[in-house]
């Protein structure tokens, strides 16, 4: 029953959107009526999504999709998240989020009515494309032809609270760029005033913030669930999310230039189209299954072709409009060596190079396989030695960019900065002299701390310190950059200064980690609702009274016959101690302990970036 409701409302929603599209040419609507239609189409799509969710929650196995991906003994949260834990459901989530964005956009005030309407019509077109894709190739409402009372279960790797909320947030970013895309296209068609740039800025910030959150959740999940002690692997699926993120960052920064009166409209439109294209392209690559990834999702190639088709339609249409309807020529750029405009231009160029390099590295193995029928890998080492060096000048610039002047190449207090930089360099050099010297470690620490320090100096010497909302809005760019600096410090320390210790232990053994005694207390096996767990219990720092307890082990999911590793992590503010339980041999367990210094800084940095993304949305 719920499947029928879901399917019908989806079809109705597509129908209404089609009607709206025709309305531009055939029927003319009042504003109220138009908004009513677009909102009802959005709500119908949501109804469709929630009826699928309902089918999952009540374990309605007469729905083929539920039967394939759910099991009645799962905890409720994974029944809900199971809705998007599969291809069909996740595409419906994609469409629902698209609808939510249209819904909220229809409430935007103070913008030109016909412009708003055109934007929404482009959204409707996208809705139709993806809606038809769902109906014809990935229908989540198919009826199960056999009568069953149990489902096949959800991939155990996805049964995790972090990953349960990861897709909706990530899609909030991906799909959010659809509205930016529509705004840019509508802006090209109307070509009237610059009002659309302000609208685009707000929405691109919203999307970017969502995307940041989504990526962070994904890599945090990889950190504790994959159990290798790393959190970023330059995996294709990760690269795909990183591309629109960097392009989106470039977009947000170029939209800043609007404030300095020199809108590089053309470039902004290009980036808007690029961001959404990359999002759709990412969906294609992930869903087509042509990539080998640690974040493997079941997928099938025929659907990939469809998404590829949609990708070509969207991108082709976008760039065609871009070429035909070029924005009016804007005044020349005031590029000086070095003022705010040129800093922003350099940063944009670097970000786009980084994006394109990641794109090339990700699809290069596919190209080679098609051309030469040879399999090669392009992995972390390639990206580390291309993308990171390219970004370094950008990182140097961002430390002072927010206080540069728009008009001249003079900078206030520049002596202060030079002095600070030299002192900092000496300090970092001394630090790395006493620890193991490492080139990347040195560069990373210097950059990270320099960004933090320069932003601090900028805040304290350029503005009067007040504690009110307005002040936080003014210093927001610096705050965002401090977040980046903190994240860079965290990334550098956790990857360069990671320490690994291997042990072979029997129960009751004591061993030494970082000068602290650890007791390998015992091995426990228990039966949980839908899995069996094997846990090694460790007591960290037993000499103290309050020793910390750590559990590391594995879970076995009988329904899907899979084993997942569950790392035991002891979080401290300056390091994570990461326990991995290996295999048993001759009554001894292999235990790997990783000491990851300053991992918490990465997450702190990301939280600061998200915070300033949110603040920037409220600022005009």
């Amino acid at each position, binding site marked *: 029953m719920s499947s029928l409701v879901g399917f019908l409302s989806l079809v109705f929603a597509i129908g209404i959107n089609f009607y709206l599209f025709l309305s531009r040419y055939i029927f003319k609507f009042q504003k109220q009526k138009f908004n009513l239609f677009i909102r009802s189409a959005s709500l119908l799509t949501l109804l469709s999504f929630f009826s699928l969710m309902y089918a999952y929650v009540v374990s309605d196995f007469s729905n083929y999709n539920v039967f394939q991906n759910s099991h009645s003994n799962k905890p409720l949260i994974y029944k809900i998240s199971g809705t998007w834990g599969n291809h069909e459901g996740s595409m419906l989530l994609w469409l629902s989020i698209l609808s939510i964005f249209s819904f909220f956009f229809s409430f935007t005030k103070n913008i030109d009515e016909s412009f708003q309407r055109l934007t929404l019509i482009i959204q409707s077109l996208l809705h139709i494309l993806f809606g038809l894709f769902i109906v014809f190739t990935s229908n989540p409402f198919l009826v199960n032809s056999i009568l069953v009372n149990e489902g096949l279960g959800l991939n155990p790797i996805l049964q995790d609270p972090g990953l349960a909320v990861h897709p909706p947030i990530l899609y909030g970013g991906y799909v959010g760029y659809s509205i930016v895309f529509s705004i840019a296209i509508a802006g090209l068609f109307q070509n009237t005033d610059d009002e659309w740039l302000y609208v685009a800025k707000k929405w691109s910030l919203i999307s970017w913030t969502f995307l940041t959150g989504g990526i962070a959740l994904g890599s945090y999940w990889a950190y504790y669930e994959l159990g290798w002690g790393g959190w970023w692997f330059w995996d294709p699926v990760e690269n795909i999310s990183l591309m629109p993120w960097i392009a989106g960052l470039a977009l947000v920064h170029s939209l800043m230039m609007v404030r300095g009166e020199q809108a590089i409209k053309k470039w902004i439109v290009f980036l808007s189209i690029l961001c959404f294209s990359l999002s759709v392209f990412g969906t294609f690559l992930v869903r087509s299954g042509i990539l080998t990834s640690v974040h493997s999702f079941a997928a099938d190639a025929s659907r990939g072709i469809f998404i590829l088709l949609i990708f070509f339609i969207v991108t082709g249409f976008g760039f065609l409009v871009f070429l035909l309807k070029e924005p009016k020529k804007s005044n020349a750029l005031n590029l000086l060596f070095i003022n705010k405009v040129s800093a922003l231009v350099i940063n944009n160029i670097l970000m786009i190079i980084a994006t394109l390099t990641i794109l090339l590295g990700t699809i290069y193995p596919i190209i080679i396989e098609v051309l030469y029928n040879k399999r090669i890998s392009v992995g972390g080492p390639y990206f580390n030695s291309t993308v990171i060096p390219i970004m370094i000048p950008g990182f140097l610039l961002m430390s002072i960019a927010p206080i540069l002047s728009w*008009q001249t190449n003079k900078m206030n207090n520049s002596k202060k900065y030079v002095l600070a930089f030299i002192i900092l360099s000496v300090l970092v050099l001394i630090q790395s002299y006493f620890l193991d010297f490492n080139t990347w470690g040195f560069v990373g620490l210097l950059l990270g701390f320099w960004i933090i320090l320069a932003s601090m100096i900028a805040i304290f010497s350029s503005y009067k310190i007040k504690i009110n909302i307005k002040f936080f809005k003014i210093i927001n760019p610096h705050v965002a950059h401090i977040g980046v600096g903190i994240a860079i410090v965290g990334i550098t320390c956790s990857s360069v200064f990671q320490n690994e210790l291997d042990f072979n232990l029997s129960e009751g053994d004591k061993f030494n980690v970082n000068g602290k005694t650890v007791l390998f207390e015992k091995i426990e096996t228990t039966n949980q609702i839908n899995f069996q767990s094997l846990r090694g219990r460790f007591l960290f720092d037993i000499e103290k009274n309050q020793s910390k307890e750590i559990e590391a082990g594995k879970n076995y999911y009988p329904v899907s016959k899979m084993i997942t590793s569950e790392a035991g992590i002891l979080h401290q503010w300056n390091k994570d101690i990461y326990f991995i339980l290996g295999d048993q041999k001759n009554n001894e367990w292999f235990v790997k302990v990783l000491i990851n210094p300053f991992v918490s800084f990465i997450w702190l940095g990301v939280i600061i970036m998200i915070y300033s993304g949110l603040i920037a949305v409220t600022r005009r």
Partner: protein
Amino acid sequence: MKLNHFFRVFHITILSFVFFTFKTFATGNIDERVKKLTLELRCMTCQNQSIYDSDAEFSNDIKKIVKQKLQEGKSERDIKRFLVERYGEYILFRPLMNYNNIFLWSFPFILLIIGLFFVLIKTKTKKA
């Protein structure tokens, strides 16, 4: 003080430090070299995981081979060549810098040069 001066100081400091870092560069002990090398190798039986990160049987075998060969005094290059002969280029996470992959490796830097030219041409030297 003009910004150009500031950047000059900036660059000199960075360059001198980069120079120092290369001077102090030294080869680590054998475990670190194994780690460095196995991080750049793909575990063929896993999903996109490096041999270093993986505990699969295949990875453990390769780790042993790498360690043994390093102890024999073979260079990283020899070991990579040996592994490529056995398993194909797919095992290398860092694609070979050869004629076939010239586009892959030069692409970012060509873009960088184009970008640099763009900025240099468009930059006004005089004050506005």
